[in-house]
């Protein structure tokens, strides 16, 4: 009932059709534009907040200068005596353990070089593991593609609603099972440092999820397989997305409740060992990001920002906070946020809205609604032609956009160089202090030898 026409027609609710004393308002309420603007503004706000939090965490992570000569200092000042809760003490133990391991690995990789045979063996194992994980991704994608085609082919025979739920079920079960497979794979690989294990696991999970999501987005936008028979493709795609979000939510709940509980029981009883914290971090954060990407595509973008910020500051992470959280926020938000933004921009700019339903019916693309509104604006009120001029010369002008993005990139580059320069200064000063220490050692030994000679 609520279309652009009914909202702007002042006589729509009156029963008497002939008499209409009220005149049409000169500048009507434009519902399509309201839709576009609300989504666009929320995306812009999310983007700004993301960039701000990213820059803040980058700053923090680059401030800490890690060097090889800090091992003794770290060991002697590692324990915080103010911590008194048993759980926090345990976390501190784990934290120190991981930090020491990391520092030792850094030392080892710096000091020794592998023999040729070991190097070849290590590269072969790495290549094999990556080939296996990429082939599983390919297999999942093919399975999803084949199944959606099969579903499209036999949609008339079975119960409509039940069969439509099977594809989300399949995708969500892949998203739940594959990370466990990748975890077994990283255990088999036996990396040196715990951080490398987490990064590799994150990369693999990310590739899987992004490729599957990409395939689904392509299917929704091209409408060759899904929603090809319906007139209102917006409703159909919206319903598909909704099904995916709900199924993903149910799977996450079940996985958290039963998967972790059962896993922990099995590990404790059979192997008598506590579950490694690395499993939880990579998988849980990715689950969150994936769920948020789907929700974001569906259009409730502000949820993404708030829940991400809350969840990324989880206190149960036994890691060096700054470096890890930077990586999480940048590498994971940017593929997923950019992906959702690209999907929506493509929908707004290039996809033709359906003819008979939705607020954009009859338009060539969703973006055209803005242009038509500007023309109406010009006609209704000649005093605000400056607004139309501003729009035409600033927003539509590609040169200005290039200039602004060039300026932004230049600023970012400058900031990075400044930080790099400061890091170099810190490194050189530390080297200087170390050299002075060695001078002192040399002098003391000389004095000792002279004293002994006497």
């Amino acid at each position, binding site marked *: 009932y609520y279309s652009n026409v009914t909202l702007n027609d002042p006589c729509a609710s009156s029963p008497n059709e002939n008499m209409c004393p009220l005149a049409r308002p000169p500048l009507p309420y434009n519902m399509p534009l309201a839709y576009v603007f609300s989504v666009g503004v929320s995306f812009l706000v999310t983007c700004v907040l993301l960039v701000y939090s990213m820059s803040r965490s980058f700053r923090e992570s680059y401030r800490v200068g890690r060097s090889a*000569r800090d*091992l*003794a*200092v770290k*060991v*002697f*000042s*590692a*324990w*915080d*005596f*103010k*911590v*008194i*809760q*048993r759980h926090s*003490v*345990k976390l501190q*133990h*784990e934290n*120190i*353990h991981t930090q*020491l*391991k990391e520092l*030792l690995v850094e*030392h*080892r990789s710096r000091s020794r070089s592998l023999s040729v045979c070991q190097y070849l063996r290590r590269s072969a194992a790495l290549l094999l593991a990556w080939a296996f994980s990429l082939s599983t991704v390919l297999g999942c994608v093919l399975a999803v593609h084949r199944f959606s085609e099969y579903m499209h082919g036999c949609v008339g025979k079975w119960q409509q609603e039940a069969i439509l739920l099977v594809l989300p079920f399949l995708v969500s079960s892949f998203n739940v099972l594959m990370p466990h497979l990748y975890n077994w794979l990283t255990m088999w690989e036996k990396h040196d440092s715990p951080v490398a294990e987490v990064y590799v696991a994150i990369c693999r999970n990310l590739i899987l999820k992004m490729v599957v999501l990409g395939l689904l987005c392509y299917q929704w936008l091209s409408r060759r397989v899904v929603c090809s028979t319906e007139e209102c493709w917006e409703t159909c795609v919206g319903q598909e997305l909704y099904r995916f979000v709900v199924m993903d939510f149910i799977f996450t709940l079940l996985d958290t409740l039963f998967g972790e509980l059962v896993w922990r029981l099995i590990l404790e009883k059979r192997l008598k*060992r*506590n579950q490694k914290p690395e499993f939880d971090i990579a998988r849980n954060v990715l689950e969150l990001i994936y769920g948020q990407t789907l929700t974001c595509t569906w259009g409730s973008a502000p949820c993404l920002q708030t829940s991400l910020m809350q969840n990324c500051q989880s206190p149960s992470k036994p890691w060096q906070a700054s470096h890890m959280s930077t990586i999480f926020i940048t590498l994971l938000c940017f593929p997923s946020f950019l992906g959702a933004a690209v999907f929506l921009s493509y929908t707004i700019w290039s996809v033709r809205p359906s003819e008979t339903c939705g607020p954009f019916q009859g338009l060539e693309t969703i973006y055209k609604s803005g242009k038509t509104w500007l023309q109406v604006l010009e006609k209704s009120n000649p005093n605000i032609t400056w607004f139309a001029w501003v729009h035409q010369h600033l927003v539509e002008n590609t040169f200005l956009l290039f200039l602004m993005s060039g300026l932004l990139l230049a600023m970012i580059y400058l900031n990075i160089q400044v930080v790099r320069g400061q890091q170099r200064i810190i490194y050189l000063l530390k080297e200087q202090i170390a050299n002075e*220490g060695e001078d*002192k*050692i040399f002098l*003391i*030994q000389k004095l*000792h030898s002279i004293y002994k000679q006497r």
Partner: protein
Amino acid sequence: MGGSASLLPREALGEYQELTFLSKQEILLAYKRFSELLPKEERENACSVRVPKSQILKLPELRANPFQHRICHVFSTSDNGDDSMSFEDFLDMLSVFSDSAILEVKSHYAFRIFDFDDDGILDRKDLEKLVNCLTGQGEDSQLSNAEMEQLIQNILEESDIDKDGTINLSEFQLVVSRSPDFASSFKIVL
């Protein structure tokens, strides 16, 4: 706190304020917590009674600390080696761990706490026990033998200036002075 304040004589309070890094409120709070560790009959003359180690370790600040035994041992002035603490030992401990204690005092006592065999130097065995205390006593949480060797080797390379294979007090204090958060982490507040 008003009730126990009347039990601690004012001259003693003033003396303790001068001899330690603690403020008046901190000393009174310490007195209150110390007398709570004693049975009711002995609370009258809490200043002269020694509290056994098992009672001291019941304090929430020391209960989960991996260095609890070393702390009691270092600060106890008991003659018979049972690590029991008097009120003055207790104040001593709180003074060293307080906010206002200077770095030299803290590093001196940290050295004594980390010196597990009380021989005045940190040798390899002390460092090994120290690292095991830091990482936790479970099987999984300890470093492997190879990692422990590498870690101790690196620590000695960095801090042993006279290359005698051990770290003495001056070398320890030099290393610790390079750390910006030693003073804030070596702190216990009641």
